[in-house]
């Protein structure tokens, strides 16, 4: 007997990630490479699979081709299922003409039919922009236990950084009483992670309500949450403890990669009970030449290393010729580094060729440079 879905996920993967510069010149932010092997979207997708959520709508928008071909029918994440599985939802023309998504809430609103076909009990809304491991079922259990209409996952951030985030002000019961986007004087340090669990009827009702308002920017944080609070709905905060990184800038993407090289990493990629799935590149094993010296690094399959790699991340298919030194850097898939080059505190974009004797390092100390070919 076909069972009604308890929880369907809607994964917002339309972001442009403009602050990632040339890394998002040909692909949306969730398709950007991370961690020597993965793309950012592998994390929310794997979290769904490992949490037992087998029905995921992925909402794309900006430059979706790379993301669409990457996701395919979802087999890599065990989401090629008979009932449910992954469905890519690009923006499509409605009867009133082609409409680009106006805001995050509008993206979901335009795909209400997808949700209606499953008529689930709950909907979890995720973003494809963050690196983290989370069991969504635990959040759902919490949501059900508290009998909430909406649960929002929050994480404590350092007070001095709070003004960079969407901050949730709560009462002692962790009920949300106010939402402030990037407040200059934050009243709380609980940042929204952009993960929402809604009772399906509540989501439907409020998306429809918000859509009727011509003044609205149709954004979850700016419009839907205040509307819910106005209508006295029970909106609670789900406190999350664990590694969570927004990789929206070149520096933060670099930092997130460097985090994997710490002696004790906060994000464990080797946990067999919570595997991070991805479309495996299927290359030969990495070859470490007699001339190679490797220290404290992460290296993926298909690499050929003849040089010196210190505290760096090498993605699949990277070649590093003899005499080259790579330090504190992230070398993305299929990049080729010639002989006697020096690369420090850099991200080398996918497929880029670094010529012999090149020197790539940031001009300012403590900065990070992105190298995407001679013209950048």
């Amino acid at each position: 007997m076909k069972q009604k879905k308890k929880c369907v996920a809607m994964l917002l993967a339309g972001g442009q990630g403009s602050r990632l510069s040339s890394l998002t010149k040909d692909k949306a932010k969730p398709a950007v490479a991370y961690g020597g092997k993965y793309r950012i979207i592998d994390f929310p997708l794997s979290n769904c699979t490992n949490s037992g959520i087998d029905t995921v709508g992925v909402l794309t928008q900006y430059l979706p081709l790379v993301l669409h071909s990457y996701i395919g029918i979802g087999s890599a994440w065990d989401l090629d299922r008979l009932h449910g599985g992954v469905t890519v939802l690009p923006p499509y023309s409605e009867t009133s003409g082609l409409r680009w998504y106006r805001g995050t809430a509008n993206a979901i609103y335009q795909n209400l039919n997808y949700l209606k076909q499953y008529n689930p009990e709950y909907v979890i809304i995720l973003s494809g922009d963050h690196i983290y491991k989370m069991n969504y079922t635990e959040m759902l259990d919490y949501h059900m236990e508290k009998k909430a209409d909406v649960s929002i996952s929050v994480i404590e951030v350092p007070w001095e950084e709070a003004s960079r985030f969407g901050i949730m002000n709560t009462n002692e019961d962790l009920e949300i009483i106010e939402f402030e986007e990037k407040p200059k004087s934050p009243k709380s340090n609980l940042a929204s992670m952009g993960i929402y669990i809604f009772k399906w009827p509540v989501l439907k009702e409020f998306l429809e309500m918000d859509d009727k308002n011509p003044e609205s920017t149709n954004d979850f944080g700016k419009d839907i949450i205040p509307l819910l609070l106005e209508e006295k709905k029970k909106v609670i905060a789900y406190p999350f403890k664990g590694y969570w990184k927004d990789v929206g800038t070149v520096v933060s993407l670099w930092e997130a990669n460097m985090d994997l090289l710490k002696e004790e990493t906060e994000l464990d990629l080797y946990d067999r009970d919570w595997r991070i799935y991805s479309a495996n590149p299927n290359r030969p094993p990495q070859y470490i030449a007699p001339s190679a010296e490797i220290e404290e690094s992460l290296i993926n399959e298909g690499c050929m290393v003849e040089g010196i790699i210190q505290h760096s991340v090498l993605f699949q298919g990277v070649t590093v010729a003899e005499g080259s030194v790579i330090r504190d850097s992230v070398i993305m898939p299929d990049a080729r580094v010639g002989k006697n080059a020096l690369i420090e505190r850099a991200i080398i974009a996918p497929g880029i060729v670094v010529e012999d004797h090149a020197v790539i390092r940031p001009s300012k100390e403590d900065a990070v440079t992105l190298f995407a070919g001679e013209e950048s």
Partner: protein
Amino acid sequence: MSSPMLGIINAATEFDTFETLTAHRSLASLPFAGRYRVIDFMLSNMVNSGITNVAIFTGQEIRSLMDHLGSGKQWDLDRKRDGLFVFSPEGHSEIERFGSFAHLASNMTYFLRSKQKYVVIANCYTIGTIDFCQILERHLKTEADITEVVHNGKSLQTYILSKELLLSLFEQYKNQGYYSILDVVHDKRHQYQINRYEWTGYITAIDSLSSYYLNSLDILQPSIWKQVFTKEEPVFTKVKDEPPTRYKKGSKVTNSMIANGCMIEGEVENCIIFRAVKIGKGSIVRNSIIMQKCRIEENCVLDGVILDKDVHIGDGIELKGTAEAPYVVKKGTVQRGVHHS
């Protein structure tokens, strides 16, 4: 355009010189080169030659091989039209040698249903890149009955012939005493035109423990692995979701091939390391083949060793073998550590 050839792999061959490596698995499913099984090379050659109809004839040990092949999806052979077929022996007593005509003939339906006109027959333990399209082209041009592929004059036990001829050979096998194509080719009385195609390029066969060990270490030479692993003709295999390999503080790796998912804190020299292997601090591993999910704890010294899957070597253990006689540790063995005071 689909290939006019169907592929047959004889995965029934066994040699008894592999010690415990083939105690509970067929030669075809013997792990090789860090992330593959021996059969992946010939199977990939067929797929890369455009062949979409492949039949594998197995021997008695099939569990490991079936687990590896699955539906053939990883080799792009999970198809509605043709695809991968696996035939295991059905306990017929008159089949004296598996892979023989008798074995093939007992699955006649497969041959009758297949639409391809030509057949390429290969063994499962040849390593190297072979393009069957080139060989078929020559076979057709020369109008040979059978084309035998050789390397440095030595037969690779790989043949191309028409399906029609193969079926007629089945008919004749009982009458003329031919048990396999090898018999046909070696019989001087036959009336068939047999051509030899010399395949240049790196080829080797894994037919003994010694050749397994030596060929594994040969793969470490760029001049060789660049011929075995090419971008244009990738070797397909069952893929696992392993994270990149971590080289931690204290690790020193040189002249080795390392698969994914490993955590290395020790020294590795001239080795093939399979996926998800842990090598602890202070350990030295040289001239060895360490298969998937082995754990080598701290301060060990391993030289000339082959560890089968899931072996756990405790602290301070020293194991030594030689190129002529590598020290083989059986799958799943746990060796308790020694502690030097």
